[in-house]
């Protein structure tokens, strides 16, 4: 029971960390995408010949001076840079932690057992051989 408990606890912590890493990576990708879109929008505003532009805030679109819009976008870019960098540095630590975790105790289930006759049959039924 204790053994089983420990194994379970271990697997849960590995799983949790791996999950965190995955969601952090996803978050970074999302933020990066936003950053790229902002960049494109800024380029567009610089080119624009009009004096005003529409800027979305949630589901509301508000008319702004180009200059105001630009400074808002630039502020957003700065914040995004900070957020992305922070996530990245945290991610490194997490990845290292995960590695440490996975190295230490022997991972149960890695010991492969040759297939039994029964399993063979099961696989045949599943259509994997045939």
């Amino acid at each position, binding site marked *: 029971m204790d053994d089983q408990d420990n194994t379970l606890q271990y697997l849960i912590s590995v799983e949790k960390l791996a999950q965190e890493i995955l969601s952090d990576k996803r978050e970074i990708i999302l933020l990066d995408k936003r950053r790229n879109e902002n960049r494109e929008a800024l380029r567009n505003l610089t080119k624009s010949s009009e004096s005003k532009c529409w800027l979305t805030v*949630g*589901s*509301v679109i508000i008319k702004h001076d180009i200059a105001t819009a630009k400074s808002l976008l630039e502020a957003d870019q700065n914040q995004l840079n900070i957020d992305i960098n922070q996530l990245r540095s945290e991610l490194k630590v997490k990845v290292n932690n995960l590695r440490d975790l996975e190295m230490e105790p022997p991972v149960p289930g890695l010991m492969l057992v040759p297939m039994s006759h029964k399993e063979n049959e099961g696989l045949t*039924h599943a*259509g994997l051989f045939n």
Partner: protein
Amino acid sequence: MAPAPGMQQIDLSKLNLPQLAQLKQQVDHDLQVFQESLQALKIAQGKFVDSGETVEKLTPATKGKTILVPLTSSMYVSGTIADTDNVIIDIGTGYYAQKDIEGAKDYFKRKVQFVTEQMEKIQVLGIEKTKVKDAICMMMEMKIQAQSEPQKVS
């Protein structure tokens, strides 16, 4: 004994039970996918209908009227309608087009029609698939019966 879908029946009778079971699973899955897309289309249809009805309520008489502007789903601010002749429509993939009320009505009418057609198509497919499923079930039952009979005899 089994009804209608003649072609499939010939094919089916050649399959063994596990194959039939697998086929049935596949068909069940397809049917479920149909059901889900129908659901999604129904929701889309509802939204288009709602938008069409909403646009119709924008008459010249509403110009300049005081409104409570929905800023988010729970926050409103007092404002006035600036333009009752035109609306801006999200036509998809990041594009927005300005249309007059008539144009907007027409847009949503077309959209509703399109979605309805899609739904009808899927419904037809679903009926076909259900027939296939029934044929498979019938065939499976027959095979099970045939399998159990000799055992009883022995």
